């Protein structure tokens, strides 16, 4: 088993495990939004799980690193925190910050991270960019709120893993990127009713099951 050093503390990790997973399991918190334990090729798209590794000039995303014996890692240097704060501020700039009226209030990954990184839950200092329309009701069982969505892709991943084909997908590009349910009207109703995994895995309440 490879032994790594994280913030001066010696940790034993399972070989083949990602650095992020190894730290999380030992109770060393590294901010992350798009990572799920089962992922073999994490998308590394949220740009939050940065760490500094001795011998590497720049911080790297911990989810993409496989643990190796003798890694010396720091998770809370100022460079790392700076990157994480910026990433979170950029996510908040396209987020409809209306926590009081959000079903994910108090169990929201963004709220937790804002607290952890000491970033105020405001759109400042960036400009705010919200998408239109604010609600997508095209899916027969799900309601989608593009302005809450952080585009982590976890919903697509779980749907793909569970059903072989994902009925969710990223659509469009850039600021206009949304999760789309194109062709969702032909989806087997029972399959969605029994599953609901995408709504459960959503860290911010952007995907909500329609009640009733």
């Amino acid at each position, binding site marked *: 088993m490879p032994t790594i050093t994280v913030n001066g503390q010696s940790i034993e990790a399972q070989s083949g495990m990602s650095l992020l997973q190894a730290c999380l399991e030992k109770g060393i918190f590294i901010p992350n939004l798009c990572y799920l334990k089962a992922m073999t090729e994490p998308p590394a798209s949220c740009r939050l799980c940065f760490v500094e590794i001795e011998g590497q000039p720049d911080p790297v995303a911990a989810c993409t690193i496989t643990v190796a014996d003798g890694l010396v890692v720091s998770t809370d240097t100022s460079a790392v925190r700076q990157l994480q704060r910026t990433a979170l501020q950029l996510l908040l700039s396209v987020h409809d910050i209306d926590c009081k009226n959000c079903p994910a209030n108090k169990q929201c990954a963004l709220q937790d991270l804002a607290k952890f990184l000491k970033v105020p839950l405001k759109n400042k200092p960036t400009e705010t960019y919200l998408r239109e329309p604010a609600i997508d009701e095209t899916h027969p069982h799900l309601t989608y709120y593009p302005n809450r969505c952080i585009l982590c892709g976890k919903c697509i991943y779980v749907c793909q893993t569970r059903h072989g*084909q994902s009925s969710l*997908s990223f659509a469009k590009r850039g600021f206009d990127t949304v999760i789309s349910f194109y062709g969702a009207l*032909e989806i087997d109703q029972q399959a969605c009713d029994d599953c609901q995994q995408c709504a459960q895995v959503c860290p911010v309440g952007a995907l909500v099951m329609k009640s009733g």
Partner: protein
Amino acid sequence: MNDVLTSEEKAILADIQQYLSESKRDRSRLIPVLQYIQARLAYIPYQSIALVAAHFNLAPAEVYGVASFYNQFRFNPPGKYPVKVCLGTACHVKGADIILENFERKLEIKEGETTPDREFSIERVACVGCCALAPVALLGESVHGNMAPSKVEGIFTRIQVEKEMEARQKSEK
């Protein structure tokens, strides 16, 4: 999403099915196939996405995800009179976004959409090549330079008059 296909389009769709059955099921063929469909139909209707998805064994959402990434693909049929509003640098500086908004309000559709009667569609383009006339809008092939919000109404009146004259000439014959 405009789901109603004309009979002509249905015939082409059958043709596309034939084309698909002869092409490889390799995922790398996805974009060429979408390009073929757009070349034939001038847009990618929902029905064709379902066909393509079945052919490549993908979810329709995934095919749509790929197609919607590229500006090249459109999901609404072009209108008989496509309105193209230039949003190039010169036109942008001269307030082209206001012109675009005027067309959108007048036709009650958004950019990239088509009126239900398929007469008009609105697109944004980047530089038509006559920046001295900014802001510029194209209606079909005709260029309208020095556009102003007040000119939008006039363009549609002219089309209406032209149509009426055509109809009268036909009835006289």
